[in-house]
């Protein structure tokens, strides 16, 4: 019996060691490509060609100069991406919360059909309607405008679904009724009382909406053809073109510059992001 327990303890120790090793290797696998990216952004092309190194070198400024000399404008790309992502995010969270609140609080005839409809359209990929969308925007002369990248964000079925689940679990109808007794109008109740109560859900969904819009390549690539309208991901795609063919140092510099804001945001908000991913999965 005692021997059994002892071998069990040894087995446990072995499996724990194996698990830690695997997890650390996976963590390194997540870090290393980005590490090499940041390090190589500071090395000259000749140094990069001569071999792998994990330590930075001193060619930061020269790489940056080569990068910016060749029509790569990260500040413009950053601004464009920021305008689109921030506006789209605000529209998404506000109108989705509003729709979810309408869905949970009021008793209207089409309530159930509306919810069914949301479930049905939740999964439609934007690629499926891209051709018609492009032709439509072309006729409106809205290509090379940010509007077609921002306005569709008002209808975000998956976010409405998430907000509805959140409200069902947290909202007590007494709050709404108390506000009515105090003479608050329905819109005012939503804006002043309900929206602040929904902040945890709003914050999570805002992070994901922002990142999704920031990283979106397909739609901007179709709609934006003028250089000064390019978003960050389109800007990144320029790095693969012929103009940087042999300038590896500046390619890494461009990649590092585009990824840096996301790393900063991620490490500041990682706790909320991980919690948000976990919540998104529990869809019952």
């Amino acid at each position, binding site marked *: 019996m005692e021997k059994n327990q002892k071998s069990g303890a040894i087995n446990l120790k072995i499996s724990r060691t194996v698990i830690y090793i695997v*997890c650390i290797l*996976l*963590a390194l696998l*997540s*870090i290393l*490509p980005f590490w*090499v990216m940041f390090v190589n952004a500071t090395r000259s092309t000749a140094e990069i060609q001569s071999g*792998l190194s994990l330590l930075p070198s001193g060619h930061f400024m020269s790489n940056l100069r080569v990068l910016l000399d060749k029509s790569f404008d990260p500040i413009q790309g950053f601004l464009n991406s920021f305008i689109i992502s921030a506006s789209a995010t605000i529209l998404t969270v506000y*109108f989705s919360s*509003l*729709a979810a*609140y*309408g*869905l949970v609080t*009021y008793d*209207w005839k089409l309530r159930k059909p509306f919810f*069914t409809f949301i479930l049905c*359209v*939740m*999964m*439609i*990929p934007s*690629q*499926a*309607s*891209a*051709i*018609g*969308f*492009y*032709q*439509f925007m*072309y006729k409106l002369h809205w290509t090379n405008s940010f509007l*077609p990248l921002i*306005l569709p964000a*008002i*209808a975000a*079925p998956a976010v409405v679904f998430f907000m509805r689940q959140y409200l069902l679990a947290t909202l007590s109808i007494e709050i709404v009724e108390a506000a009515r007794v105090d003479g608050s109008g329905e819109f005012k109740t939503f804006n002043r009382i309900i929206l602040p109560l929904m902040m945890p859900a709003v914050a999570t969904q805002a992070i994901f909406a922002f990142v999704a819009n*920031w*990283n979106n390549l*397909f739609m901007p690539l*179709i709609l934006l053809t003028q250089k000064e309208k390019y978003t*960050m*991901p*389109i800007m*990144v*795609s320029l790095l*693969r073109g012929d103009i940087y063919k042999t300038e*590896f140092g500046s390619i890494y510099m461009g990649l590092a510059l*585009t*990824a840096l804001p996301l790393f900063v945001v991620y490490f500041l908000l*990682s706790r909320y*992001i*991980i919690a948000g*991913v*976990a*919540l998104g*999965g*529990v*869809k019952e």
Partner: protein
Amino acid sequence: MRRKGVNYSKFGYIFTFPFVLAFLIFSLYPILYTAVIGFTDMQGLIPKPIHILDDPFGNFKDLLFDNASFRKSLLNTGLLWILNFVPQIVLALLLTAWFTTKRLNIKGQGIFKVLLYMPNIITASTIAILFSTLFAYPMGPINSLVQALGWSDAPIFFLQDKTTARGIVAFIQFWMWYGNTMIILIAGVMGINPALFESASIDGANGFQTFFRITLPSLRTILLFTLITSMIGGLTMFDIPQLFLMGGPDDSTLTTSMFIYGQAFKGSYLYNRAAAASMIMFVIAGILSGLVFYLMRDRDAARIKKAEKKYKKSLKTAAVEREV
């Protein structure tokens, strides 16, 4: 009781109106428009009036029966998805089992989650170009590594070989998504009633038995949900293969989204063909979302309906038996 006869139900319509309006304009109309274009001869840079083909399904027939490139893109999409999803779900399940087994008591889970999820948040375009630069030929970081470790004497041209090119695209997808899947599955396990695990351990179940008999069956819905969302995500795979190799070598990493993009927006302006391809993609996505909808429907209502049916049936058979 309604106070003073105030009827609030109209606010249900008002509050959901912006959503419905935006959906009608920016989703439904474009989808219908795409469907119509799929039946026309719309080609070329200058927009023409809608003209339905004499054989309305001509574009669809061409794509499905005569267009080798489109069929290849469908095949590639499926292949790349399977190559990334199978290892992804296996690794995510393994990590979930490790992280949620109390007996193992793995420390530092928070930091592991943060690091394993990290690639998911970085722009896919950046990652695609980063990897194509890392695999550069003849001198790049991966080639330096391979030579330093003595695995190969000559530099390897990874991106010219179909198998390695596909393998790397699938690996990038896997690497970007397994952390996400793992976090979802761990949340799912946290939602399982702890009493189930307690009684299992009292009954003397070992780790394997607990995992296969309790954890996996309890995760069924979440696993299916992950499967279907991943399938739809895989169906629309674009950023990584587009920027990693632009579909090459020899169209071996060309996906359906890239095919649509290429037909319409890369100089050939074959809007009708691209629209027909989008509709085929839409139908596949529709079938998949139908499955999700079926999974997430109101389960209790469905159960009551089923029970009712059974009850009626049993009444019927009872009546039949009596007649006999």
